[in-house]
């Protein structure tokens, strides 16, 4: 009889129970004692099912063991040795994949000079100062973009339109007229548009806030934390910090704009990794509903880049804040650590990604002149252009890009259990680090695996102790574009 051995999965424990995260299916199963014992035994070496049953028959009835082996085979947690699992087919998304989110860079200008900025800082891709792109998007181009979005969204009844910059509010007239236009045109073609924007909050005047609230525009504020944190990098061109300018405006926004939850988006640098303190400040003291953290995107030699030891300390803090999230979720309270919530949602749905994100697929960025790019971070880059709003998506370029970036071709990822969720990580990060969007981001693999494991444990804990919490992820469209950063 042939022997059987372990297939690809990540096992974890939560709430005193054993779980499996199967790869690449991304299914989560809870094991009973017999299943745990079988996997533990096979972990020490392959063996024939008959011997396996015999060896464990002192602990479990043989019939039960045989049944369990059978079940584990069927979900592909174990399989016959020497018979490789059939290679997952290199599935490409269906042709003419509909656009779900269009990120409109209404300007490439900014009134802040954040040192680490990927758009203006030392690692920028596009020359926004002397380049040939207009500094502001015209009303005409914005309208053409809306038509493009409605056209390319196919049969989707809902399209997401996210305004981005530069500093988005520097082009307020176009922002306003575009919302009005998109709303009217969408109604004419029987669709709905969901609006959101990201801003540095410097230009949030009362009438702007009023407008955003009235139009149910989802707002994400780029902010780094308390004064000394915010003021180190998020500065005006003369070097003055922006905290004192933005804070009263943010408070006013949070007071007035109640139609959509307002989120904060924090860029973490090596200088400021006190995540607990930043989180407490932004939620308890300022009043943000959610806070999302992202390490700064930078080439490794910048002095604000997070080094390996920084990732370790960041991980420990993420984990401890995640523990707070779990406590809150178990008690049925809201907790605004959005990094956990987003990952839990993906785990719950069993997402297994061929591509790290929707860029170039369901999400596209539009530059000020109407060129369509991979995402907003590449908007305006000729190298990453994928058509124009006037001529539509260049499907050949799109397919070429997707072919080249499929997880099946990322050899480094082929043995990683976290690949269903990570799929190699951000294209822009890879471009900045390695000069190549198709490279997996190997500098944060350990971090991704540890973080995914943390979220899996939280998921397991919730599934055992408060499964009702997970029901929120069952249906309903997520406002996925509101956290574009």
């Amino acid at each position: 009889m042939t022997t059987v051995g372990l297939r690809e999965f990540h096992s974890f424990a939560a709430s005193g129970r054993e779980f499996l995260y199967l790869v690449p299916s991304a299914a989560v199963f809870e094991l009973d004692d017999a299943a745990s014992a079988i996997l533990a035994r096979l972990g020490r070496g392959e063996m024939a099912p008959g011997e396996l049953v015999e060896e464990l028959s002192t602990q479990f009835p043989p019939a039960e063991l045989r049944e369990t082996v059978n079940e584990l085979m069927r979900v592909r947690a174990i399989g016959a040795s020497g018979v490789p699992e059939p290679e997952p087919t290199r599935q490409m998304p269906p042709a003419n994949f509909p656009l779900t989110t269009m990120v409109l860079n209404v300007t490439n200008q900014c009134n802040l000079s954040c040192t680490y900025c990927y758009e203006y800082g030392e690692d920028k891709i596009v020359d926004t100062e002397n380049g040939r792109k207009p500094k502001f998007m015209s009303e005409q181009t914005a309208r053409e973009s809306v038509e493009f979005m409605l056209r390319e969204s196919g049969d989707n009844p809902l399209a997401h339109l996210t305004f981005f910059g530069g500093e988005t509010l520097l082009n307020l007239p176009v922002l306003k007229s575009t919302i009005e236009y998109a709303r009217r045109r969408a109604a004419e073609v029987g669709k709905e548009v969901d609006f959101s924007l990201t801003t540095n909050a410097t230009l949030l005047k009362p009438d702007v806030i009023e407008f955003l609230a009235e139009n149910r525009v989802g707002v994400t504020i780029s902010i780094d934390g308390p004064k000394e944190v915010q003021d180190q990098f998020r500065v005006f061109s003369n070097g003055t910090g922006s905290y004192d300018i933005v804070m009263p405006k943010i408070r006013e926004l949070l007071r007035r704009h109640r139609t959509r939850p307002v989120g904060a988006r924090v860029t973490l640098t090596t200088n400021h990794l006190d995540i607990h303190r930043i989180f407490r400040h932004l939620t308890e003291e300022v009043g943000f509903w959610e806070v999302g953290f992202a390490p700064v995107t930078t080439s490794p030699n910048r002095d604000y880049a997070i080094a390996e030891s920084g990732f370790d300390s960041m991980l420990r803090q993420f984990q401890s804040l995640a523990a707070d999230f779990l406590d809150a979720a178990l008690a049925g309270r809201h907790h605004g650590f959005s990094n956990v919530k987003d990952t839990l949602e993906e785990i719950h749905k069993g997402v297994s990604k061929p591509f790290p994100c929707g860029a170039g697929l369901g999400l596209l960025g539009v530059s000020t002149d109407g060129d369509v790019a991979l995402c907003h971070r590449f908007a305006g880059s000729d190298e990453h252009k994928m058509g124009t709003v006037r001529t539509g998506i260049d499907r050949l370029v799109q397919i070429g890009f997707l072919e080249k970036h499929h997880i099946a071709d990322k050899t480094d990822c082929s043995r990683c259990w976290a690949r269903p969720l990570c799929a190699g990580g951000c294209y822009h990060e890879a471009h900045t680090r390695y000069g190549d969007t198709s490279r997996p981001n190997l500098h944060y693999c350990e971090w991704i695996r540890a973080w995914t494991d943390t979220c899996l444990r939280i998921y397991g804990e919730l599934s055992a102790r408060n499964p009702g919490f997970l029901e929120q992820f069952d249906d309903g469209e997520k406002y996925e574009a509101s956290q574009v950063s």
Partner: protein
Amino acid sequence: MKHLKSVNRKAGRIVQHVEGEDVVALQQGPPQQTPPAPHIPLGCTMVFSPGWEADSKGGTAGLCTPVERDLFDCHEGCFWPAQVPDQLNHAPNWTAKCASAQKDWRKIDLVFP
């Protein structure tokens, strides 16, 4: 599934998939689900005929080649039309070397007109 509990939605779909009606393999025993609709004429599996024993893995999932599977049962004793040579006109001696199917079925060859 008794020993594995599906937790997330993907796991639920996998269970649904593997516990759904199994139309090929017989390893799992008769279908347990309702309605119990047998998809194979009773009898086929009871008698020996080439192609019905087991595949290289000891199961039956790999036995789909009609010329092996349907060889005798289907084209002679059953309603199912099997793709076999015309033994009446063109290949009367097709099974001449196969005195006992159980022993000699490998001797049955393709027919080249």
